[in-house]
């Protein structure tokens, strides 16, 4: 693959492209890649979109992006402080266009488990929890999920517990983009440096549209140049396990 970009750049650019100009976009806790992606989109094709940060700011202008997206520095430059209670009221009354949410596991019916595996009282694996996802997924007009890792333990046939389900539009990973169609995940595009064999081996369910899906257009020179300006310190890389960075 080209040395000018890797999975972090591909994901940041792919997520940015999904943002539409004029939208109100929410970036919650634990979301370095979405923070970079929305900041990038606002400097490219979506200058009139609004970033609502769980750090408390509306279109904040911190002097640099950091990995902690609940940081109150994400209210610097904002003309108001928009707190968590404000946000959950807004999303509940249908006021949020697009939300980015993470996931621990997702299945072929686009149901997300971010809670646990095994017995509830003594789980084999405890995950962080879904945050606001159980409420946001049915309420935000559109939800883009992302995960900086792609394996059969993450993309499973059936999740053992449904933390959240709802208006999933796309799922962006280091390998590909899925879309939701008639209640099922369907391959939308495959990143240019990924073979179809590798995607099959890395996914725990049979992939629909495996042969028909196109390649994700690689990041353009213009997108990459703006990405370096938005994120000079490489916040986009912080979520990636080492194996995802080396395997590309």
């Amino acid at each position, binding site marked *: 693959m080209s040395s000018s970009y890797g999975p972090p750049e591909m994901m940041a650019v792919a997520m940015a492209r999904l943002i539409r100009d004029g939208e109100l976009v929410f970036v919650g*806790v*634990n979301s*370095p890649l979405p923070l970079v992606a929305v900041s990038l989109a606002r400097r490219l094709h979506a200058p009139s979109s609004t970033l609502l940060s769980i*750090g*408390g700011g509306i279109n904040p202008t911190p002097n640099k992006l*950091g*990995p*902690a*997206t*609940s*940081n*109150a*520095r994400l*209210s610097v430059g904002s003309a108001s*402080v*928009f*707190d*968590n*209670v404000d946000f*959950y009221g807004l*999303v*509940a*009354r249908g006021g949020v266009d697009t939300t980015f949410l993470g996931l621990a596991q997702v299945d072929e019916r686009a*149901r997300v488990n*971010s*809670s*646990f595996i095994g017995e*509830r*009282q*003594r*789980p*084999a*694996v*405890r*995950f*962080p*929890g*879904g*945050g*606001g*996802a*159980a*409420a*946001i*997924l*049915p*309420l935000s007009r559109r939800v883009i999920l992302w995960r900086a890792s792609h394996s059969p333990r993450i993309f499973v046939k059936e999740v053992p*517990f*449904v*933390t*959240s*389900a*709802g208006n999933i539009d796309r799922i962006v990973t280091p390998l590909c983009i899925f879309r939701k169609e008639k209640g099922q995940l369907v391959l939308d595009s495959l990143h240019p440096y990924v073979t179809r064999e590798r995607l099959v081996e890395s996914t725990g369910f049979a992939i629909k549209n495996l042969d028909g899906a196109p390649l994700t257009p690689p990041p353009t020179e213009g997108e990459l140049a703006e990405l370096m300006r938005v994120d000079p310190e490489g916040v986009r890389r*912080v*979520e990636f396990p080492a194996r995802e960075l080396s395997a590309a």
Partner: protein
Amino acid sequence: MNKQLALEDAARLIRDGQVITIGGTLCQRVPAAFVREIARQGVRDLELVKPSPGYDIDLLAAAGCVRRIRSGIVSLEQPYGMAPNFRRAVEEGRLEVIENACPTIMASLQAASFGVPFQPVAGLEGSDIPKVSGFGKVADPFTGKEVYVVPAIRPDWAIIHVNEADVRGNARIYGSPVWDRLMSRAAQRCILTTEKILPTEHFAAQPELTIIPEVFVEAVVLARGGAWPTSSYPEYDVDDDGMWNYLERLRAPEGLARYLEESKSHDRSGIEVAA
């Protein structure tokens, strides 16, 4: 009325088996010095109610202070990742999680703050959370449409770290108050730790900036750096070395005791400085 207490004395207000809520979020503006003092005093069987705990529950889980938690997400955020001591305590069956979404905890606290028994919550369709966590579903008496409801939860204490307070308990928070304004209304009483103690005139000059009024407050603790190693905007950011040191220390079996001993003079220094 002067409500200023030393950290150790204020922490003694927390009794075994009580329900607490803790201000801040993940690794931001957590009343960390107070949390460590609870651990030093060996308080047991607490229930923590908080939409987004992080450093606080990780340390309290390691110390065995908490038997049950109601939360939406538990994380130390990037680059530290998931809270490892919380995870271990849950996987070993020592800590029960009542699965929630952040806004369902919010709604339980809102019900308590409004003095009503339960609160409707939007969303949750398709989620298994209402079933495993005992939420209700009722028909709206006006439209007949069904809605999920959660019970009021009134914590015994809200423990909140603020930027500025007076000795009567009026307090300002700069940056986002996160959930803390709500927590201060939902709990029976509040305990504040504060970066600075200022005269009441400072607050009276711009009363609209007071997030927590004195009527809710039981105790005020001067705790400079009291959120460390979490942030207290705008004074200081998350201390990266402090976070890695915490995680490293607690990997050893006797690491927690050592960590609590090493941080003791930092935590209790606020009062010494004031005196």
